[in-house]
């Protein structure tokens, strides 16, 4: 996987936009550095100026004053059309050209950049694979023959086709159902792991911001920055009432989506036994020696199979059938929120598995609550010091 950052830093300095015939500016003296290769999310109430701010970056809206640079280059000194070919742009409901096929839509920007035909064709297939659409099935379809989620994927593919260092996305997943939106978000994160673009993403869904953002900018009226920080920091420590209102109830729960099981101290002291290598009698002896009431039965490849209580063993003939099967388990990659769900449905704790599904430990509810408490304390200490 490429670890190289292909994105470019974006810098906005004293950017103001005043629409003709309006009193107050829509965006007032906006300053921000958007780091290369990161996803920065603009969230804020409707009409606060998110779209206006974003569209000034590719000059779909010309700033009234201020400067914007991409990778150090002053955008106002470039030809606007040429600038836009170097900045990917994806919007709500995709904005696909209905009279073009999927392939023709994706090929537009490479075409504008005068790529060779062959290179464009290859690129189209590559992009379709990247966003999870089989070229042999979808290449010649028209947008109206696609689902909303598929259209959105084509929109992202079109935006990325010429490999722009910067990608602007204005509520790109706003018009699809929650499940599809979740999938599209996961895919964007997967793409970003590979591509490392600089992405500016506008949404008014705070959960989406937490899930996708390396940093979140909570914007107020006239695009004033209320807080610009990592999702963790904003959740743990909203800068003011407005941000707190946006974070909403359940901030602790949202934090759980940010942490992975591998980041916390889960236990690895469960008594385990590999089923084919042992017998109920042997296990019972082991359990009484170690003073444990529960044990976990694994299969030959050390994958968790069943939970056994010590009293199940007196009547059991084989470890393959004793006790109750393991239900939900979590992997070290899972979020703490997934872990919490598994813990609750398993009744107290959940088995943690490694990359090949093998047992690596267990996690219980105390671990989760302790982690939340710890985060709180850290952020309180951090903000007290600063």
């Amino acid at each position, binding site marked *: 996987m490429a670890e190289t950052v292909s994105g470019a830093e974006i810098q906005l300095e004293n950017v103001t936009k005043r629409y003709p015939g309006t009193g107050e500016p829509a965006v007032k003296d906006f300053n921000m550095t958007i780091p290369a290769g990161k996803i920065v999310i603009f969230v804020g109430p409707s009409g606060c100026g998110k779209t206006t701010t974003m569209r000034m970056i*590719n000059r*779909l809206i010309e700033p009234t004053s201020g400067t914007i640079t991409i990778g150090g280059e002053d955008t106002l000194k470039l030809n606007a*059309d*040429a*600038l*836009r*070919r*170097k900045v*990917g*742009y994806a*919007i*709500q*409901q*995709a*904005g*696909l*050209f*209905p*009279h*073009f*096929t999927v392939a023709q839509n994706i090929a*537009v*920007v490479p075409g*504008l950049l005068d790529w060779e035909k062959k290179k464009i064709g290859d690129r189209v297939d590559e992009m379709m694979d990247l966003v999870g659409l089989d070229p042999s099935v979808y290449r010649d379809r*028209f*947008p*109206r023959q696609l689902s909303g989620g598929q259209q959105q994927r084509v929109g992202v593919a*079109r*935006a990325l086709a010429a490999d722009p260092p910067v990608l*602007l996305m204005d509520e790109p997943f706003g018009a699809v159902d929650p499940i599809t939106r979740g999938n599209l978000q996961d895919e964007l994160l997967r793409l970003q792991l590979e591509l490392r673009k600089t992405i500016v993403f506008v949404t008014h869904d705070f959960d989406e911001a937490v899930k996708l953002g390396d940093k979140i900018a909570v914007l107020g009226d006239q695009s004033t920055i209320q807080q610009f920080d990592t999702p963790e920091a904003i959740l743990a420590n909203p800068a003011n009432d407005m941000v707190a209102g946006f974070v909403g109830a359940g901030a602790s729960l949202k934090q759980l989506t940010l942490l992975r099981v591998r980041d916390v101290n889960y236990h690895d002291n469960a008594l385990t036994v590999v089923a084919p290598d042992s017998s109920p009698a042997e296990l019972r002896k082991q359990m009484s020696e170690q003073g444990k009431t529960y044990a976990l039965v694994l299969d030959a490849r050390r994958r968790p199979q069943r939970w056994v209580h010590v009293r199940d063993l007196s009547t059991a003939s084989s470890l393959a059938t004793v006790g109750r099967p393991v239900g939900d388990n979590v992997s070290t990659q899972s979020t703490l929120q997934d872990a919490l769900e598994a813990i609750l449905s398993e009744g107290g704790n959940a088995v943690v598995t490694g990359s090949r599904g093998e047992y690596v430990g267990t996690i219980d509810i105390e671990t989760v609550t302790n982690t939340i408490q710890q985060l709180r304390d850290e952020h309180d200490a951090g903000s007290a010091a600063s």
Partner: protein
Amino acid sequence: MNLLDYVADRWDRLSLQAWLHVSEVVQSTLIAAVIGVLIGVAVYRSPIGSAVATALASTILTIPSFALLGLLIPVFGLGAVPTVIALVLYALLPITRNTIVGLAGVDPAISDAAKGIGMNRVSVLTRVELRLAWPAILAGMRVSTQMLMGIAVIAAYAKGPGLGSEVFSGLTRAGSANATNQALAGTLGVVILALLLEGVYFLIARFTISRGIRG
């Protein structure tokens, strides 16, 4: 002589007139299409401009064709010139109006996306907006053509070419030999040609409207 014999007998002249008729109608439609689309492109972004252009074109349509020709003859003389000018003027309304409606109906998000990914103004117009408005423009041209087929008959009054001269002379000679046949041959010729042109429009639509936007 019955109608069929009459047509067979005068086939050379009739087919020439039919050809001239179609040719002047098609040429007038094409000229009107170029002018109408240019006007549409010039005004569609401004509601006032659109209203004015549509109103002007509608006004032309209310002038009776006899009167219009009568006014053009003193300026341009008799023949093809005043005929074509009149036909173009009549064809303007459906084409201009449909161009404006078609262009105004393009989803702004699509034009925005086109601009946003780096198309210049001309490309946005020619590769996206006009392509999306094309079904409407073509429908306007079709209506114009059908209308002109009838109006071109009247143009015989200005000594213009076409089947109109058959109809007119048939009617003025009413009662004499073959007068009815002549008028009838001219009229039926116009109807048949109109149907043929309908077929041509169907084929043009089939081959020029993207499957992605075909209704």
